[in-house]
């Protein structure tokens, strides 16, 4: 069980309000991702749930019970930190055993759980090593091992992959997703990387300056962003925003078109411009088009085979059925 409810939770540091009154429910077994730019309060929110920070007002309930004043150790949650926060003076085995030792679990049960966690995380051969003798990915696995042996009601992840190199990050992302499928335990995951959010989450909570901008499934956020901030934050490359006369044609203050919803050709299309930088990814090519008269740059995602050169004049056709419309306040206009 691990249903977490935040009820009008606020957090102030001195006079600075980091989290304005916030309501949020994380369902049991759900993989929830808090995403937002740095300083948006996502880590603070996680630490409030963990109990590492005290709320300034409001209530946190875990499985229906008021946990607002419960110390972190008694909340039944496990946390994986950005820096891994392993105990450097203990072997991998002792690191993983630590929460069980604190819970005074019988030794045989500890050994059994260590063995099974080590097997699941490919750490069996490293149990006697110290964290300093492990690679970044292995350290991260030890941190996860230390979290899973407690069988917590929920896992909290605070940007766990940001210290890893790109290749390892993709691998660990999959491992954490698989872990969630296997354990079916509630996971709350903080990241500033929208790709991690999109690929892992059941539910994404987009935060900005402590405010929840939108809550929804990855595809909800992709297809129906509720405001310009979410529209710009979710999706890579970023959505193109066009204001002025072109937007007015759609009865909007601003329209948003995703790069993958624009066709590029050398002969026809309502918009035109000059090719600037092209980013070739092999499978896809991103063209940055200038001098369109619509926005400074329009980004277009095209097939990897499409070959335009720097300086070529091209024509662009947006898919009008998937244009996002926003009003002057930046809020979505629904059809």
């Amino acid at each position: 069980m691990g249903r977490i409810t935040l009820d009008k939770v606020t957090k102030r540091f001195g006079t600075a309000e980091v989290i304005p009154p916030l309501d949020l429910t994380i369902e049991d077994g759900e993989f929830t991702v808090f995403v937002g730019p740095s300083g948006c309060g996502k880590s603070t929110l996680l630490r409030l749930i963990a109990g590492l920070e005290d709320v300034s007002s409001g209530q946190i309930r875990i499985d229906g019970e008021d946990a607002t004043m419960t110390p972190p150790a008694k909340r039944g949650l496990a946390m994986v930190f950005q820096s891994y926060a392993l105990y450097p003076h203990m072997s991998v085995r002792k690191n993983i055993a630590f929460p069980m030792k604190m819970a005074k679990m019988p030794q045989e049960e500890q050994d059994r759980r260590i063995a099974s966690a080590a097997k699941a995380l490919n750490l069996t051969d490293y149990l006697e090593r110290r964290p300093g003798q492990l690679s970044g990915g292995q350290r991260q696995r030890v941190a996860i091992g230390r979290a899973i042996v407690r069988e917590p009601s929920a896992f909290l992840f605070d940007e766990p992959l940001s210290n890893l190199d790109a290749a390892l990050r993709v691998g660990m992302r999959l491992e954490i997703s698989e872990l969630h499928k296997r354990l079916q335990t509630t996971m709350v995951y903080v990241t500033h990387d929208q790709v991690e959010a999109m690929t892992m989450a059941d539910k994404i909570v987009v935060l900005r300056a402590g405010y929840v901008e939108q809550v929804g499934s990855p595809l909800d956020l992709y297809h129906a962003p509720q405001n310009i901030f979410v529209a710009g934050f979710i999706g890579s490359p970023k959505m193109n925003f066009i204001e002025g006369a072109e937007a007015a044609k759609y009865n909007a203050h601003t329209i948003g078109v995703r790069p993958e919803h624009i066709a590029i050709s050398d002969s026809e299309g309502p918009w035109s411009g000059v090719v600037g930088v092209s980013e070739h990814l092999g499978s896809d090519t991103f063209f940055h088009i200038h001098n369109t008269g619509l926005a400074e740059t329009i980004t277009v995602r095209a097939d990897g085979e499409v070959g335009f050169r720097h300086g070529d004049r091209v024509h662009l056709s947006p898919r009008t059925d998937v244009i996002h419309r926003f009003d002057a306040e930046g809020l979505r206009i629904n059809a």
Partner: protein
Amino acid sequence: MARSVTQQRKAINTAVAWAVGLLIFFPILWTILTSFKTEAQAINDPPLFLFFDWTLENYAVVQERSDYMRFLWNSIIIAGGSTILGIIIAVPAAWSMAFVPSKRTKDILLWMLSTKMLPAVGVLYPIYLVFIRLGLLDTRIGLVVVLMLINLPIIIWMLYTYFKEIPGEILEAARMDGATLKEEILYVLTPMAVPGIASTLLLNIILAWNEAFWTLNLTAAKAAPLTAFIASYSSPEGLFYAKLSAASTMAIAPILILGWFSQKQLVRGLTFGAVK
């Protein structure tokens, strides 16, 4: 760009370093040399450096006249006891200052340090009276407490500096893992701070060992440590430099040896955190 060091420059640096080293060590060396001279040779003018009749006579006399082992034992108990007691009190204090600082933490730290600026003699009278009242005069326990108190600010300062270097996330991880405050300090913080604690321990043993003001003023015979042992050779029967030197050498030898063997630890500890 790396600074280029010429051979000549290197030689000069080495010479200067040796000169400074010898200058600092010279009084100790002179004391040790004098302890092997006869009383007449000790006050010879011009002073004799290495070419004199080496003798162990002074050591024999000192050994005969006073019970070195009793002073040594008192020194060990007073220096060791005050340091261990100090660390037990300082660890939780430094923990709270390093990890849950309040607005006043910096002020408290500075205030503690300021007590070290007070001349010790300024509080001799009140402490003496307290000692009389409590029957602590000339007791080892009394000296342990006084030396612990006067060195406590330094112990707390040093531990505070080391604790500041320990990432807070590791302690938070321990809290998430269900450790109580006591377990967090015992199983996580203290083992990680062992190098720092060790050098604090060493430095304070040295400070307490060498402390003379309180040990001389608050002891007579029973609890007198090696500082009193040296002092007992200084004046009453006139100046006997050679015997005084022999007593001094015997008094400083244990701590000199300890310092020699732990110098790496001391240097590491004192420069801990200076560079990342």
